[in-house]
């Protein structure tokens, strides 16, 4: 009976730990990353994930002419500076934060509506012998109310 209880507790811990990590990710996106959007209004969409050093994420979105956008991309403190590039549908790089001191935000508007890709990379850690760090990475969009 004790063993069953023991197994149940371990199972519960293993299931709840990722959920707790996700909950922390939501808190990080909401309390830390969203602040980067000010004075723009957050569009309300939630894009965040736990990534390891060396991992990548991509986001596809249509951006509309006539709107003013701010993109904010943030990683938790234990991760290295997050890199991101914005590409058009022909894979031309329109912006890279690597060329801009790893800025967390990018403000832009468009003459015509476009589908763009945002490629996000958590650079690999310096020490290969160590376990890679993992942390929350959030991608958020701000809009200007006119």
């Amino acid at each position, binding site marked *: 009976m004790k*063993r*069953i209880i023991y*197994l149940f507790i*371990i*199972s519960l811990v*293993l*299931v709840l730990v*990722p*959920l707790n990590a*996700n*909950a922390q*990710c*939501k808190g990080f*996106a*909401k309390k830390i990353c969203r602040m980067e959007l000010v004075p723009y*209004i*957050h*569009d*309300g*969409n*939630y*894009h*965040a*994930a736990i*990534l390891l050093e060396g*991992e*990548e*994420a*991509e*986001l*596809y*979105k*249509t*951006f*509309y*002419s*006539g*709107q*003013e956008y701010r993109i904010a991309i943030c990683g938790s403190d234990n991760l290295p500076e997050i890199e991101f590039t914005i590409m*058009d*549908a*022909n*894979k*031309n790089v*329109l*912006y890279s934060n690597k060329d801009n001191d790893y800025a967390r935000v*990018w*403000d*832009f*508007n468009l*003459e*015509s*509506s*476009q*589908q763009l890709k945002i*490629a996000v990379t958590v650079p690999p850690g310096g020490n290969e012998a160590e376990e890679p760090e993992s942390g929350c990475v959030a991608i958020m*969009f701000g*809009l200007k*109310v*006119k």
Partner: protein
Amino acid sequence: MRNIFKNHLLMKINSFPMFRYGLLLLAAIMFMASCSSGGKGKTGEPEEVVVDISQIDSDFLDDIGEVKKIFYSLPSPLETAMMIRSAGAVYNEDLLNSIDNASNYTTTKSMALNLGSYTCDLSFASLYDQTEASINYMNAAKKMADGLGILDAINDETIQRLEENINNRDIIMEIISDTFMNSSSYLQENNRANVAAIVLVGGWIEGLFLATQMVDEDSLDSSKLVNRIMDQKMSLEIVVKLLEESKDSPDVISVMEDVQNLKASFDKVTITTTPIEAELDEETNVTVLKSQTQSSLTPALFKEIRDKVVVIRNKYIS
């Protein structure tokens, strides 16, 4: 020390058959958790030429390398409402989904679709400073969120804060954005990405419905709203990808059928664009993405799209 621990653990495992079954159970739980956590691994010099965007879209979205996580982002109900307003639309409350319908929505699919539609209507009403309608639509959205078991996305405190700041549009926008983020993050974190996707589609269809209904058919060529509607051809590609991520869900399959039906009409819209040039305004630190787009929509095709949107939207809100 590590080896001693390892040997000790192996001895323990070998001595308890139940423990081995337990490990299998744990492995199964971990496997299921990882499958449903939302992480999705996939394998998979501009000249002055005009490019047909419909050719690009499908290739562009399929060109996914070795990445840990892929997001397909639709315009949120707030962004949709802002687009409609900035295109010069006039507020017409008769077009919105009646709050009286809220009690009709009892299934997960209908509540998810109408959480999206009510949030879009709420955003729309708020952007036009319609205070009473804003409170009513927030209450309707709360009903949907509660029905979906989304804990505390919209609570009594939210409604009170909305009422207290009803004349402050910025705070109202912040509240709407906050509640929508609470709903979508709750659904995603609780492995209900299928429901989160349906909420987004519900808001997107409502926005498309409002936009198509507000177009003056006599001035299709000069209408900003028509341009916004044609732009949805690009978002439609993303809608399809988003729904494909949850294609095991019967609710998603039925929504996908409607979306594919609509896509068949949007596929006839032609959009061509010149390559984009990014130009930074040093003074404001804002980049302008410069490009020229040409698109065409015949009156017949506009009517076809509008009629399909009406059928889908009425199905969703009835």
